[in-house]
């Protein structure tokens, strides 16, 4: 699908002014968008990919400074164009789709109003004409019942529907360029699939040049024609998609692809990205720090068993409305053998987080039993439950939120010791745990904000292990991390399981991660377990249609992935 060059980013360098100094964000980046083509821009957080996209719209924040290069669109340099000239281009010739579709819509106007307004901004159609066009657009983005959507407010739609409305607005004026910044990151995997497909089809229809920015190589693989890889502000390489995955040129790209869980056999250590002695980026599979044979997975006694666990919430939308009942967890029964990992998958809102809290009785179950080595936690009183919690630990999704920002790492890690053992041997334990999770000793005196996301997750894990628990519940423990960091944390979890005889309840929405870490799998939908079994069996031969939908929706990368090979 060869097209002509529409938008050219040439040799662009951007810096940020922060407290008197300049911090370089992008260095000498060049990109060319061609009509009818989807260019994927992939990079981890902080790589500068979003800044690049904003520059392409002339929407740079005030504290950003262009130190070199230009962004050419039809002979105009967008970085130096006047405000009104830019305004005529935006939305009409170049349009943009953002990450969080719900937040990107004005909450107090109906979707119809907003689409009509977007059309009328650039075309003299009259209100009636614009409304007709809006309806047609909604039809085009395959919204059910467009007239109803026209009259709906953003909060009345789902995230996927909102993103379709955004896409409808983006294509409203048949733009030459569409910039999509992480358009599916906030969406569930099944919805992601639909949105990506839609984007691709629309693009084929209107022939625009699309810049698709994402951190997810799977997404790129799914829809992009060409791929550009950016790392710490530097363009690493640019190539056709197939080529990137089959024969990546730059070491970074290679390493990045290698660290994806789906690229390695399940239950192995993942390669991680490192810089070697010469400063070159390399991908290495490091041996486990502790030399110990992997435990026998099968045949272990059951550590955790859930029986008929149920939790119902009453939701009250506003203080002035009546509540309605929601079954968050509905008659869930599960068993996890000791020293094994159970992967719990499901889309957002399916009740998997509630389940994790129920197990620890952070939320009181309505009914059901929680048995740990035969002891039923559901019947314990407050004090006994407090005691019981020393054998369990919880690792959360958000490494920024799960550490008290006002405490030092030492106090954070020693917290379980303080709580259950009156602080006995705390310093020694902290030192040992820091070592175990691969953090330097000096870390003990620092505060969480001085660490990166991956390091924080290590701190959280260290804390979880302080009292050598039997069960560790990982609730989306790696979801907020970049692929490269995710690989490190997954490795760590892998090693620790061996070292400390841990049993994991591993909760995630990411199928490939779950596949990678789990011995057995449970699939959750609307509060119920719809399918469970050994990991291989569930992934290879899903019995439940929902499981199948989930698996189908996962973007597949490369040819080494077993599931993809079958597909």
């Amino acid at each position, binding site marked *: 699908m060869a097209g002509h060059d529409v938008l050219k980013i040439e040799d662009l360098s951007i810096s940020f002014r922060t407290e008197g100094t300049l911090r370089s964000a992008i260095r000498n980046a060049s990109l060319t968008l061609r009509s009818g083509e989807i260019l994927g821009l992939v990079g981890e957080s902080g790589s500068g990919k979003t800044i690049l996209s904003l520059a392409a719209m002339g929407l740079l924040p005030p504290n950003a400074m262009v130190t070199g290069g230009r962004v050419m669109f039809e002979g105009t340099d967008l970085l130096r164009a006047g405000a009104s000239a830019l305004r005529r281009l935006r939305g009409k010739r170049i349009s943009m789709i953002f990450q969080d579709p719900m937040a990107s819509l004005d909450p107090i106007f109906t979707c119809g109003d907003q689409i009509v307004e977007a059309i009328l901004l650039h075309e003299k159609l009259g209100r009636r004409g614009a409304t007709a066009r809006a309806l047609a657009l909604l039809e085009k983005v395959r919204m059910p019942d467009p007239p109803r959507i026209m009259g709906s407010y953003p909060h009345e739609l789902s995230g996927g529907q909102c993103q379709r409305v955004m896409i409808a607005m983006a294509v409203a004026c048949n733009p030459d360029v569409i910039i999509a910044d992480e358009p599916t990151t906030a969406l569930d995997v099944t919805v992601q699939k639909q949105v990506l497909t839609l984007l691709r089809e629309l693009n084929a229809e209107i022939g625009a040049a699309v810049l698709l920015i994402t951190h997810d190589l799977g997404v790129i693989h799914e829809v992009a024609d060409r791929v550009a890889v950016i790392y710490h502000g530097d363009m690493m390489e640019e190539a056709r998609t197939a080529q990137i995955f089959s024969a990546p040129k730059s070491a970074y790209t290679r390493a990045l692809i290698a660290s994806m869980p789906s690229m390695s056999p399940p239950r192995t250590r993942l390669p991680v990205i490192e810089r070697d002695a010469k400063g070159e980026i390399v991908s290495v599979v490091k041996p486990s720090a502790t030399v110990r044979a992997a435990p026998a997975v099968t045949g272990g006694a059951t550590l955790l068993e859930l029986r008929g666990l149920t939790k119902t919430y009453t939701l009250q939308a506003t203080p002035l409305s009546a509540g309605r009942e929601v079954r968050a967890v509905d008659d869930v029964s599960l068993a996890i053998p000791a020293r094994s990992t159970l992967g719990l998958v499901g889309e957002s809102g399916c009740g998997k987080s509630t389940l994790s809290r129920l197990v620890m009785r952070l939320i009181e179950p309505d009914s059901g039993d929680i048995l740990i080595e035969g002891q039923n936690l559901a019947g314990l009183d407050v004090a006994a439950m407090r005691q019981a919690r020393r054998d369990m630990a919880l690792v959360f999704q958000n490494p920024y939120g*799960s550490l008290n920002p006002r405490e030092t790492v030492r106090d954070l890690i020693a917290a*379980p010791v303080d709580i259950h053992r009156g602080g006995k041997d705390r310093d020694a334990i902290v030192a040992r745990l820091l070592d175990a999770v691969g953090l330097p000793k000096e870390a003990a005196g620092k505060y969480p904000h001085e660490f990166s996301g991956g390091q924080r997750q290590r701190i959280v894990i260290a804390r979880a292990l302080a009292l050598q628990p039997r069960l560790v519940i990982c609730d989306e423990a790696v979801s907020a991390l970049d692929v490269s960091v995710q690989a490190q944390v997954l490795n760590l979890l892998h090693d620790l399981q061996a070292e400390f005889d841990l049993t994991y309840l591993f909760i995630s929405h990411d199928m490939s991660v779950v596949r990678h870490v789990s011995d057995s799998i449970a699939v959750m939908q609307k509060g119920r377990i719809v399918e469970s079994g050994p990991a291989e069996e569930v992934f290879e031969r899903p019995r439940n249609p929902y499981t199948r939908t989930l698996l189908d929706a996962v973007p597949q990368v490369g040819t080494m992935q077993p599931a993809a090979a079958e597909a």
Partner: protein
Amino acid sequence: MRLSGLLRRPLVLASLCVIFGIVVVAMIGPWIAPWDPLALDQNNVNQGSSSAHLLGTDEFGRDILSRLLVGIRPTVVVALVSTTIAALLGTALGIVGGYGNRTVGFFIMRGVDIMLSFPAILLALLAVGFWQSGVLSLSIVIGIIFIPQFARVAQSATLQVLGQEFVEAEHAMGARYTRVIFRAILPNILAPLVVQATLTIAAAILLESGLSFLGLGIVPPEPSWGQMIGTARGYMSQNPMYVVWPSLCLAMTVLAVNILGDALRDHLDPRLRNA
């Protein structure tokens, strides 16, 4: 919480200087006052500025400058004590209201609502009416008046903190409630409370002055700024500067505290800082 950025703003620095000055004067006022603030001089009433009386004299011939200097103390004491009372009790109520069990929380917050619907100055009017007015009773009354605001702020901050995972982490580790409150909640709701405290100090100064203005504040002849303003209002035509001086002092103090509070709020609110 880095405060160095704050000090770089001239207005904030000036406010800090004013506040520092006021606290110092509140401590040493009686020693630096050129005259006895209570000494009547029947031959020199309502005089304008002179070399003997820099800011003139009041209706009793008392030195206005000396009264201003000495009058800071009750003002400052009432402001600080009442804010302390409100902060301690309000925060406690707010935390329990937010963190405690639902029924307790419900009753606490409804109680707070009731206090809020009871107009502040009227409460003071009633309370001061049956209590002897004095620095201590005034502080208590004003302190009680500001409890609900603190409770609201503390409660909403607590709820916000409770929504964060580190609190859940404490529970997951089996922490006791006291540990959760003092280690997890309190340090993390401090920022809005500090802001609320500065605003309360300013409001308490204003309320004290308003009560003194109504004749319900500090007992004469001990001076307080509000009481001086209230009295001076009657002498606006004879001795116009009499009302100007305490008004200026009061407005400047409240202004300084408000500016500091604003700056702190801007500084502590990451959303405003980075926007």
